[in-house]
């Protein structure tokens, strides 16, 4: 697709970016997220040690020149583990949200557009899933598929898509009554062409906002699953795993758990701040006001 400055989508995007950029908080948050993604990608090159390598003579080392963040109860380098741990938090959450969008968007679109019985059935399914606690489903899946990041990610995707489907359904419902949809019918377009060619391009902003807002909760849930032992399995270095392992030594060596905890809070907060600002920047009424400020 060529970049067309006159396209309303591109123009809106530029205005949105301008409004977004006016918030220092959001820009700092965005910077933090980019930094963590860079860390996640570069972990193998910037880590001083292998994250699972044990140094039996150096247990519970406090931060020192050899181990910048000290070592844990098996003498593993904390810095390396935390850097590698970013991979799980940053990428597994991205995967979960992507699956959520891929499943939830078409289901919500079809449900909202066709309505009737189909809508009824799909929405009752989402109701059932929404009333199902994610942790329980994850435990079940861990039991069936074996513990690991994949069953945890799958469980979160399965409980995550209904909220996306509901949002898309709502937007499609409000769009489908508009004249341009009737105009598309009158030139003889099929339902499929109308839904995906005409309506969906008008529904993208709420999807983007919801996806960004979801990232934070997914990171916490994934770490939570790792913490209780059904997500990432030790000795793999996930932040949730590191916190869980450090918990036993919390009084003597508090930095083991606290540092990954702080990092996680930082990332989640950054996602929420970016999401908040993005929502304001994409809101056509708020945007004008914010741009003028």
């Amino acid at each position, binding site marked *: 697709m060529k970049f067309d400055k006159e396209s*309303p989508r591109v123009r809106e995007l530029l205005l949105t970016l301008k409004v977004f950029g006016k918030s220092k908080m959001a820009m700092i948050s965005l910077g933090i997220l980019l930094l963590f993604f860079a860390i996640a990608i570069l972990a193998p090159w910037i880590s001083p040690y292998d994250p699972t390598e044990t140094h039996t003579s150096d247990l519970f080392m406090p931060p020192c020149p050899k181990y910048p963040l000290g070592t844990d109860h098996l003498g593993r380098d904390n810095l390396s583990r935390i850097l590698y741990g970013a991979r799980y938090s940053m990428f597994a959450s991205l995967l979960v949200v992507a699956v959520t969008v891929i499943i939830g968007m078409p289901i919500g679109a079809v449900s909202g557009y066709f309505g009737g019985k189909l809508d009824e059935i799909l929405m009752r399914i989402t109701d059932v899933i929404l009333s199902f606690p994610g942790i329980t489903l994850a435990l079940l899946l861990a039991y069936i598929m074996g513990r690991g990041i994949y069953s945890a990610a799958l469980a979160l995707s399965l409980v995550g898509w209904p909220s996306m489907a509901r949002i898309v359904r709502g937007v499609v419902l409000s769009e489908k009554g508009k004249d341009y949809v009737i105009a598309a019918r009158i030139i003889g377009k099929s339902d499929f062409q109308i839904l995906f060619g005409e309506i969906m391009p008008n529904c993208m902003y709420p999807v983007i906002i919801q996806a960004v807002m979801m990232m934070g909760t997914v990171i916490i849930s994934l770490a939570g699953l790792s913490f209780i032992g059904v997500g990432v399995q030790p000795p793999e270095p996930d932040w949730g795993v590191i916190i869980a392992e450090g918990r036993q030594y919390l009084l003597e060596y508090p930095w083991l758990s606290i540092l990954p905890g702080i990092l996680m809070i930082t990332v989640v907060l950054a996602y929420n701040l970016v999401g908040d600002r993005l929502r304001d920047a994409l809101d056509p009424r708020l945007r004008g006001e914010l741009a003028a400020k």
Partner: protein
Amino acid sequence: MKKLDNIILSVEDLHVIFKTYLGTVHALNGVYLEVGKGESVGLVGETGCGKSTLGLSIVRLLDESAKIVRGKIVFNGESILEKSSEEMREIRRKYISLIFQDPTAALNPVHKIGDQIVEALQMSKGLKRAEALEEGAKILSMLGIPDSRKVMEQYPHELSGGMRQRIMIAIALSKNPLLLIADEPTSNLDVTIQAQILELISDLRKNTQMSLLLITHDMGIVAQVCEKVAVMYAGQVIEFGKVRDVFKNPLHPYTQGLLKVANLVGEKTRLESIPGTIPDLRNLPPGCLFASRCPYSFDKCLRIRPSNIMLDGKRSVACWLVEDKVNKFGPG
């Protein structure tokens, strides 16, 4: 009955209801209408009388809460209400076009003008993209749009209201329809643009021999553009005939009132209005729907609803006053 092959559209005894949470709304209550080939018919009436509902019924694009209870719609010799949705799509794709009141809402904001016209041409004529671009540019310049190539590269929000309506007309005409339904095509435009658009529609109709059903609330527009007029009131066509005949000699008290309000001829004295309001469409009286506002209503009007009576094969009126006259003195 006129010969069927001269008729492009006929609507008979059409009843449409809307199921709402406030009750069942009787939007159309036995509509009779006929549009001949190449003819232009104006459909007038006040807000909420069912004009747009009738327009959408013809192309079967009423929304889900609406239901066609009974009646018959025959388009080009085929019964519309018996068509499958696939056959209906075919009819819409090739033969009937619709223009809306608000061209801003009727154009998809995220697609370029050119793409929207090209798509319409591809749908109806199966042209290749390059051919459709060529053809689209031709149609736009025919509609008096300067620099049509440039316009096709623009997005709806970059154009003026009049320009957007021209684009809608271009899209509507791109399939060379047999019937064009224009639902208040100029209500959202200012007066000078309004005149241009109406002239455009008029000229095009004469040149292409398509039939036109022009929905409006403005008697002046009907006089300017149409050959025949159907006056609607509370979901019924209460008077139908040649514009000249109806305007010169309105038979139904409502038409008389409407013409007086419009004040097309003579000096303006003071703004007239028809007293009263339309009946509650959820709870219709058994008699004539206009009876409560009619200065001439009598006993029978309140008991029995009049249906359309043909006078001399050209005009029809739904009014007991006229029927009694017909009975006494014979038609005409």
